[in-house]
């Protein structure tokens, strides 16, 4: 279950409703304080205010997944959440993935040719990182099903699945993902599947 820091919520709660607000966001480990209109989506705040244009705007309606980022470690579509709703949250975008060199998922996408035009690729990669954290990678079908929120009009799906499997094989699984995968397998075994 999600944990809610009640104290943090109360501190962020405006005493009165506002058409614009100053919000604190941690993006790729860096703290920002930005003034946003209440209508600004998290996606637009990232691109237009923080100039992190790696996150792409596709449909703007949650259907294509190009705008996928991690919020507090979970993958979301940044077009369907308002920036003000993310006060105090920690956001990871494609720009924040590489540490000292490309992230293993980024490397695997390049090695497996997991893209053509590249527009959907930041969203695909962020979604893949979220997917691996969720541990939903026990078969090709499970990977495909759980990458379904990311469309690729060039049709690079086959190589995207291969890239995710490569990244997994390189031991990308973090301990929590491994624990969750083991737990899921145990539960399936108990149900006789």
């Amino acid at each position, binding site marked *: 279950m999600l944990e809610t820091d009640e104290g943090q919520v109360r501190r962020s709660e405006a005493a009165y409703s506002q058409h614009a607000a100053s919000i604190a966001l941690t993006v790729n480990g860096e703290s920002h304080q930005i003034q946003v209109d209440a209508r600004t989506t998290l996606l637009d705040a990232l691109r237009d205010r923080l100039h992190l244009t790696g996150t792409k705007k596709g449909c703007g309606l949650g259907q294509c997944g190009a705008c996928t980022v991690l919020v507090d470690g979970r993958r979301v579509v940044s077009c*369907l959440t*308002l920036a003000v709703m993310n*006060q105090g949250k920690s956001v990871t975008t494609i720009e924040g993935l590489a540490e000292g060199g490309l992230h293993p998922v980024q490397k695997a996408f390049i090695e497996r040719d997991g893209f053509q035009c590249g527009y959907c690729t930041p969203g695909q990669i962020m979604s893949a990182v979220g*997917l691996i954290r969720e541990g939903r990678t026990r078969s090709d079908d499970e990977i495909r099903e759980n990458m379904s929120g990311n469309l690729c009009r060039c049709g690079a799906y086959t190589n995207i699945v291969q890239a995710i499997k490569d990244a997994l094989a390189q031991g990308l699984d973090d301990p929590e993902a491994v624990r969750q995968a083991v737990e899921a397998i145990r539960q399936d075994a108990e149900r006789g599947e």
Partner: protein
Amino acid sequence: MVPFAYIAVATPEAAIRRTAEGRGAEYVAGGTDMVQLLQEGVRAPLELVDINGIAFDDVSIAIDGIRIGAMARLADVADDPAIRERVPVVSSALQESASPQVRNMATVGGNLLQRTRCLYFRDATTPCNRRVPGSGCPALEGQNRINAILGGSPRCIAAYPGDLAVALVAVDAEVLVAGPTGERTITVENLHRLPGDAPHLETVLEPGDLITAIWIPLAAAGRRSHYLKVRDRTTFEWALASAAVSLGMNGDTILEARVAVGGVATKPWRLRHVEEMLVDRRLDHALARAAGERAADGAEPRGRNAFKVTLLRRTVERALLQIGGLA
């Protein structure tokens, strides 16, 4: 998007106070439907009341039932061991809803209240009685392939789009509602209204009402259950037809039955006459076929959605075969 004010609240009391005052305030939780509606100009609230600070997000097992906090995210409830084990119909319906990203964001309370996918409701440039009362319904004679064949009226044939509510009807679930005058419970079956003459009134909720939890009685959780969703593509798509089936069995004899269907009706739709056909009968191919044949009784297809009559019959039949291990 028209300008609106925003306020985050941390308690149900504060939330209810804002929206009960009748100043055009609306709740936002996961935001996955609301932000679409704002972007498309379908909704224009004066104020959004962000209820994400209300920490009703756990799944808990009591002696007589399962309680799901309304703020729990779809992905968390789908994965919850108790939900998976006791009410697989609910777990499956959630797992087959939306996309992984949206399931991480959307709340179960908000999901019950998601708005129809009718093309005319979602297109603010066209008339729609549900969006603008009295403006007309182009779907009656127009692009109505995804619209309802059951529960429609001459004013509206918009299909209720959700999966979770359909599954919850099959397990006798209720919603707990807090409002300006206190708390009450409403069965999920009675939460949504038929469109009738007032399709803009979608639920029995009143201004200020806030869904705080979903309650599944343990008696229903003891039954065998199954969800079958049929759609244009195998994932990340709304149902063209779906069936949520919950059966109390003794061997292969059905003692108690719930059959609810989605994608085909203006609200989560219970097929009581089909349930009655199943009780005290042995679940076999013939019974599943006979029950499926009656599933679309009373349907009123309107052109492009006529295929849903056969689709619904086959969906119910197959769901019964699957739950009986006969498929």
